[in-house]
């Protein structure tokens, strides 16, 4: 699987890939990540706030401040040379700039939706559409919530026809796993127009 050169000699390290888990606050991002992950960490990072972006260094230290962003992440060891990382995006709009780093080089994104608060996932959908990141919408079926059909959600979110909308239960490992598979299949369709036929070699 050595498709990217190792940065050093000797035993080749595995290579890592990532998938983003986005959606509104409290929609189940942490739950989804932890139901399939081998680890359960929370990552924090300090960023210079927007005030300092593009401002000359000499213009005054007082304009610079840092903000701390927390995001969930999880790890799935797929085989001896592939590791998949899942990153839950920080929920608030003001952290959208963090998404640029996360989405760079990602396989794609899962946008979790709660049909009681469907509008909460608009920013995520907009973001991935604009950036051309392959994404699927996974409706997290909370207990007792009114069930909507995926087609209704697709219409309500004004999604392109080829964006899959699936139902999931973020608490269940098998369901979270199916959601990840649905995204990877979609990303393959987006890239090569098919998903599972062997490529001519």
């Amino acid at each position, binding site marked *: 699987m050595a498709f990217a050169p190792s940065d050093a000699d000797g035993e080749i390290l595995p290579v890592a890939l990532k998938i983003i888990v986005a959606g509104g606050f409290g929609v189940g991002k942490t739950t989804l990540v932890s139901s399939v992950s081998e680890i359960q960490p929370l990552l924090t990072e300090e960023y210079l706030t927007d005030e300092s972006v593009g401002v000359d260094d000499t213009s005054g230290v007082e304009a610079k401040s840092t903000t701390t962003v927390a995001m969930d992440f999880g790890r799935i060891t797929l085989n001896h040379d592939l590791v998949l990382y899942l990153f839950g995006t920080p929920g608030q709009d003001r952290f959208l700039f963090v998404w640029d780093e996360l989405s760079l080089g990602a396989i794609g994104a899962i946008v979790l939706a709660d049909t009681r608060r469907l509008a909460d996932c608009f920013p995520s959908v907009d973001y991935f559409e604009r950036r051309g990141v392959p994404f699927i919408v996974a409706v997290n079926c909370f207990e007792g919530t009114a069930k909507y059909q995926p087609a209704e959600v697709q219409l309500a979110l004004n999604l392109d026809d080829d964006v899959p909308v699936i139902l999931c239960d973020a608490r269940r490992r098998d369901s979270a796993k199916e959601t*990840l598979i649905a995204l990877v299949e979609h990303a393959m369709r987006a890239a090569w127009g098919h998903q599972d036929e062997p490529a001519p070699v």
Partner: protein
Amino acid sequence: MKVPDSPDAVWVDDDAGPVVRHYAMTLGRTRPTRGEFDLITLVMATRPASSGEFGLQPEHDAIIRHSQTPVSVAEIATRLDLPVGTVRVLLGDLLDRGFIRTRSPVPSTHLPPERVFKAVLDGLRSL
């Protein structure tokens, strides 16, 4: 942190933040001297945890301790409870001295080959 009852010491509680600021740990540097460290760049130490190399800070030693098997930059930051930016600088020092090996993720400008996607699917299906 345990706060003694001395009036001189009461300001050093958790609200005061870390006693050693992150920029002190990195000697004021905000970028690594060497290497690009993505959140998912994998890191592995080239020497045992207890080798006690000269000139390393405790945080460098901690990174070596936590990377005896391949781990991502994100995991190291979590385990050390440090911001990723600080960890990147420390990793640059270790790379400089040959104490770690790294593997970058697939370049963001390139799509991974299709066989990698297939391997991901196979791996997920067999979870």
